[in-house]
């Protein structure tokens, strides 16, 4: 089959699935709905694999398969095609989306089987995959934006899936509104780029990107990319717009795994990598990206230390890991950022699904204070979760180790990196190890605090298979991009990842400062050692039962209070933006509107009333008289025209 057909099937298959399920959304036949949805995504996955094989077979400089289906918009010089591109970057994304996606669909069949809205759920999930594929494959910013908004919609629908619970509906709205802020910036960014470069096609934009680095803050590339990045902070939950992601855990757990961990939230990173030449030309933007990433990584990690809800911990962990990705792309390590995107998709999806399995076993309970000792009830979940844990804390030779280590090294060694960024990254890694170990300890290890009426049980096979597959990927996934240094040490493993991405990644124009292998080994050892130590400490604290809420609060005092309240960011937003806005709107209504605008309109309306009562005498209600007036009017006009 031609690649156009493959791309068409790839895109349409989830959409057809959406239609098939969406048109019979009242059905409660979870087997049928799940099979349709999973099948649809799996078909897409097969297409992705075939496309990937086509790409690999092609020569390195011709790895780009395009499909222009039709001209979507043509207004004057502004043309946008419904064009879709599979290249080195998007091929990885579609594999992740459809691969991890089909596993999560499979998991959902087991997880959602008791739910009344199961068909609707699968319809939304398929719609999400469809939109995500549009986002990833679209060849122009506008096409990407369509997908960008589409995934936002699906995210809203799925966060508020159990909308009869007011808090969950509110969480959906919060996500939607917070994203709107970012989307506005994204649109402005598109305007700036189109105004300056005359196109929205990303390949043309990349080709047109300034070759010299923009030093000014007001350059087109800098402003445009900055705005796009603000858009990305909304979608990818970065400081200051990260607040929606923890609340988004109100949705079903597989949704959190698919949308809020593996795919949608990484769209911002993907966008930056996709436009990397443009970002490379704007070092000021890159600096801000890196700083925001570092701040997010540390801040989210600290909040994660105090949470007790199993999904909230994972949510803050996601925010923190996304911070890492932005740190990576901010210092110009686009390959490392993509690599971490992929490994994170594996292990975070695994952990979310694992948490789903735990919640399933606990009959809906999410509080880790009521768990503990689940290891013996849930052996498979525990083992797979363990693999994910090892990956995320960066245990050597697990997938997270390679990607995180590469990011840390690049944040130090890249010409746009600095030692401060490395320190922030290392602190983040240490904290990550701590809170993840805390999660493991509270959930699986130690003594059981499970209430008597709950009887934990291992999940059915349909849920454990995805866990096992993802666990395998989490363990070995890193070997696709082994950093040069370690690769040499392990026996000349080449860095496939970097080779694969090299043609589409623009290298930084600045010369890198010379670094030695010793430095790299030293930094790596430092960060890994710190992480392992903190993991050990956390293990000791939380398995011994000393790590209770009160004990920690006493030990850290006000610091704990601040962190436990998430740095009062939500409160700050309410106090600083939302409440003043409401108050000022009320003032406008009470004083300006009532006294000024209404009075003006009243005067005008009174005048109209007066004129109307005059004209009313003509309104006899006799329709034929009206018609006669029209006729006479035509006569007058025609006479005037003819006499002229």
């Amino acid at each position, binding site marked *: 089959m031609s690649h156009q057909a493959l791309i068409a099937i790839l895109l349409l298959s989830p959409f057809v699935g959406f239609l098939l399920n969406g048109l019979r959304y009242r059905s409660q036949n979870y087997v049928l709905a799940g099979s349709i949805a999973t099948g649809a995504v799996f078909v897409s996955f097969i297409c992705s694999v075939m496309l990937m094989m086509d790409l690999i077979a092609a020569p390195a400089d011709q790895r780009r398969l395009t499909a222009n289906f039709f001209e979507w918009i043509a207004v004057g010089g502004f043309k946008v095609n419904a064009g879709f591109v599979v290249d080195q970057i998007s091929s990885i994304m579609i594999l992740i989306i459809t691969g991890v996606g089909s596993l999560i669909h499979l998991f959902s069949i087991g997880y959602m089987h008791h739910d009344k809205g199961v068909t609707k759920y699968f319809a939304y999930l398929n719609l999400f995959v469809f939109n995500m594929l549009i986002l990833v494959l679209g060849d122009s910013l506008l096409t990407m934006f369509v997908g960008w908004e589409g995934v936002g919609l699906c995210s809203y629908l799925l966060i508020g899936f159990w909308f009869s619970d007011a808090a969950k509906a509110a969480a959906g709205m919060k996500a939607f509104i917070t994203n709107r802020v970012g989307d506005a910036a994204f649109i402005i960014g598109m305007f700036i780029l189109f105004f300056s470069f005359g196109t929205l096609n990303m390949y043309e934009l990349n080709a047109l990107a300034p070759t010299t680095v923009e030093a000014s803050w007001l350059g087109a590339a800098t402003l445009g990319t900055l705005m796009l990045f603000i858009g990305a902070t909304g979608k990818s939950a970065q400081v200051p717009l990260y607040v929606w992601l923890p609340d988004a855990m109100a949705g079903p757990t597989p949704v959190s795994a698919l949308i809020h961990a593996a795919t949608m939230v990484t769209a911002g990173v993907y966008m930056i990598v996709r436009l990397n030449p443009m970002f490379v030309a704007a070092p000021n933007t890159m600096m801000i990206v890196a700083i925001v990433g570092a701040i997010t990584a540390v801040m989210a990690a600290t909040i994660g230390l105090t949470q007790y809800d199993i999904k909230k911990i994972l949510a803050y962990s996601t925010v923190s890991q996304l911070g890492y990705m932005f740190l990576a792309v901010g210092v110009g390590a686009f390959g490392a950022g993509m690599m971490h995107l992929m490994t994170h998709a594996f292990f975070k999806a695994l952990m979310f699904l694992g948490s789903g399995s735990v919640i399933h076993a606990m009959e809906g309970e999410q509080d880790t204070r009521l768990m503990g000792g689940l290891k013996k009830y849930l052996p498979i979940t525990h083992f797979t979760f363990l693999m994910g844990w090892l990956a995320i804390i960066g245990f050597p030779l697990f997938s997270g180790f390679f990607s995180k280590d590469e990011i840390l090294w690049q944040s130090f060694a890249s010409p746009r990196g600095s030692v401060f960024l490395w320190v922030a990254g290392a602190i983040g890694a240490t904290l990550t190890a701590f809170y993840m170990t805390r999660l493991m300890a509270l959930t699986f290890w130690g003594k059981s605090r499970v209430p008597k009426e709950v009887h934990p049980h291992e999940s059915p096979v349909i849920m454990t298979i995805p866990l096992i597959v993802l666990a395998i990927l989490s363990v070995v996934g890193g070997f696709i991009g082994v950093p040069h240094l370690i690769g040499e040490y392990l026996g000349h493993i080449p860095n496939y990842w970097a080779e694969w991405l090299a043609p589409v990644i623009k290298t930084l124009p600045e010369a890198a400062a010379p670094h030695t292998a010793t430095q790299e080994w030293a930094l790596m050892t430092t960060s890994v050692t710190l992480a392992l130590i903190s993991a050990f400490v956390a293990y000791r604290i939380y398995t011994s039962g000393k790590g209770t809420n009160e004990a920690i609060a006493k030990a850290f005092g006000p610091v704990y209070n601040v962190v436990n309240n998430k740095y009062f960011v939500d409160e700050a937003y309410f106090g600083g933006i939302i409440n003043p806005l409401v108050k000022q709107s009320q003032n406008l209504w009470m004083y300006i509107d009532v006294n000024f605008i209404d009075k003006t309109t009243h005067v005008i309306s009174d005048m109209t009333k007066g004129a109307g009562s005059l004209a009313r005498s003509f309104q*006899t209600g*006799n329709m034929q008289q009206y*018609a006669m007036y029209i*006729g006479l009017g035509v006569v007058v006009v025609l006479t005037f025209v003819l006499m002229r």
Partner: protein
Amino acid sequence: MPETNILTTIGLEHYLVLSAVLFSMGMAGVLLRRNLIVLLMSIELMLNAVNISFVAFSKFNNNIEGQIMVFFVMTIAAAEAAVGLALAVSIFKRFKEVNIRFFEHLKG
């Protein structure tokens, strides 16, 4: 301009005058008749008159847009007739009355 016989050589004027005559007849119907439905029919007559001139212009100006306009006019005429008749029927059902003067009571 060559000498033409008004009876044997049919040109644009012929169609336009025919259209004008039909239009005026429709107009007279609207102004003078009292039956609501005959009024509606007179409006249809006017629209048809306009259609004739559209098609005539289309033919004699070598421009197909005129026929497109006829298409649109027909659609709107059909819509108008549908609504007009529905109104007439519902009013007739309620008041047993189709005299246009009766509608003066609706002026409010």
